[in-house]
């Protein structure tokens, strides 16, 4: 009898050990590098050599992608909708412009200061989005962005008002790499920043923090019941997303040597949501894929039908919404996940 009970204990112990082994494997599988990730970065680097005449639009894509990755952290992870993410992008753009104009022409300093400034704004406004439903949040974030746009418009002595902020030149990156006429170094600069931000966001996504964000999005009541301090986590991720968005704005200023009041415009926030609808949310690369498709589509349509391209974009958006948001958000799952498939089932 004793032997039997020992047997049972051994059995349960071994089944627990097997479970632990499998669990470790599942967790490793969870944050392994996906096929499409390598594809994206290889293609982005290859573009420098393959498409040297398209670098300006590629720079535009990289900046939009950075902006979208930033919103994805808030929307795709914590489930916070925003129609005012341009507030952070625009603030970053103006700060970078002002720094180049008055203080230092070297862009990396401007990039970091712009990110920090937007982060401060993000932190302060994050408390306004803690309460309420999606609709309240849309209105609050929209309101903040509109106020920022009006402030920039009114403070013409500082921002140039409706004329925009210009008359500055951006110095070489780190004092070494000059911005060239073809936008080659500008593109590389934006790509490096996008890569670094995406890698930071990726670490975050697979950390306990990232998991808790998805829990808040998935079921806030239960998240509280397993001990997730939802408000603190939302404040943290919103602040971080604002930093990234501000850096996106800074990149735009530095690659164009001009700040248009357009950086704070409503359509920027709205376009950004569309980018994420196209690319899908919650897996980080949605912002990048969405930015590529959205920019190319916009570019192509505005050549084909210069007057009506917005109509076509709108029509495509309606078609996508009718197809179903879920299906769109999951299209990435149909891509191959890894190079060798066999290993998955072992």
């Amino acid at each position, binding site marked *: 009898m004793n032997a039997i009970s020992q047997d049972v204990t051994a059995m*349960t112990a071994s*089944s*627990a050990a*097997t*479970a*632990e082994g*499998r*669990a*470790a494997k*599942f*967790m*490793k*599988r*969870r*944050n392994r590098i996906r096929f499409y990730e390598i594809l994206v970065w290889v293609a982005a680097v290859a573009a420098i050599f393959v498409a040297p005449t398209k670098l300006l639009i590629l720079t535009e894509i990289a900046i939009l992608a950075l902006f979208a990755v930033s919103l994805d952290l808030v929307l795709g992870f914590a489930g916070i909708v925003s129609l005012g993410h341009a507030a952070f992008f625009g603030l970053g753009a103006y700060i970078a412009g002002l720094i180049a104009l008055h203080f230092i022409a070297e862009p990396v300093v401007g990039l970091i200061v712009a990110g920090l400034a937007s982060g401060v704004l993000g932190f302060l406004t994050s408390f306004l989005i803690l309460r309420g439903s999606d609709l309240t949040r849309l209105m609050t974030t929209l309101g903040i962005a509109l106020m920022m746009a009006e402030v920039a418009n009114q403070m013409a002595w500082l921002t140039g008002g409706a004329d925009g902020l210009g008359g500055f030149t951006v110095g070489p990156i780190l004092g070494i790499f000059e911005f060239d006429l073809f936008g080659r170094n500008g593109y590389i600069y934006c790509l490096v920043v996008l890569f670094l931000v995406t890698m930071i966001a990726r*670490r*975050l996504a*697979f*950390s*306990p*923090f*990232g*998991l*808790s964000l*998805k*829990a808040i999005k*998935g*079921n806030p*009541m*239960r*998240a*509280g*019941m*397993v*001990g*997730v*301090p*939802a408000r*603190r*986590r939302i404040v*943290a991720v919103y602040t971080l997303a604002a930093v990234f968005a501000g850096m996106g704005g800074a990149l735009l200023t530095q690659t164009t040597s001009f700040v248009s009041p357009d950086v704070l415009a409503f359509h920027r926030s709205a376009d950004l949501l569309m980018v994420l609808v196209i690319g899908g949310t919650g897996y980080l690369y949605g912002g990048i894929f969405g930015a590529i498709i959205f920019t190319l589509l916009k570019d192509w349509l505005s050549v084909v039908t210069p007057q009506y391209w917005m109509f076509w974009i709108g029509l495509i958006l309606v078609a996508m919404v009718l197809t179903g948001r879920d299906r769109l958000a999951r299209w990435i799952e149909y891509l191959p996940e890894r190079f060798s498939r066999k290993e998955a089932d072992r």
Partner: protein
Amino acid sequence: MTGIVLETKGLKRRFGAFLATNDVSLKVERGARHALIGPNGAGKTTLINLLTGVQPPSEGQVFLEGEDITSLASFRRVKRGLTRTFQINQLFTDFTPLETAALAIAEREGIGHNLWRSITGYGKVVDEAAALLDRFGLASVMGERTGTLPYGKQRLLEIALAFASKPRVLLLDEPAAGVPEDERHEVLAIVSDLPSDVTVVLIEHDMDLVFSFASRISVLVAGAIFTEGTVAEISADPRVKAVYLGENV
């Protein structure tokens, strides 16, 4: 070690003109196996919601270990050792059971705010999550999406999730509802195996389960405590039977 661990004083909750919880003053002793029974709509779940901070009370106070926790958010109560299961599953449908358990354990260990290290790096958390799932018979489905699991498995995860927080006071809202008959006793056995200083408050309709599990029973009717006593007292009380059969007392 004995004493009152969970207490309410004059707890009331109104929904418009409807009084869902009517002046409930309840005392639960440490290590008790305390059952809350009552007909449908008696306010059992509302009471649990008030205890765990899912809803704020209209009046009255809640005490945990003698401290007033009435205004504390749910997650702070969990940190103090008070957690619950839900009558209707409240799970993260896009998570795998493994992620779900790892999340709860990570939060319990206070590493949930870490945004730099991958969960894979916390071997202990992953191991514990695996062991917990194994104990609830969920090891075979640990890598599947929770939303696609059969209801019985989701139900087990619901309960396992409360265990992951290592509560000192555990509130179970009809844990056996929807659990297949053959797994039902297994669930209750795991609950019974809890250390004796862990307090369990159980809402349950299955009287056999209640009588075999509980040491003390409170009967809730129309939001108020109707009567309270030991299993023997309650099972012998003709008024309780009458209440359950919907007769007027």
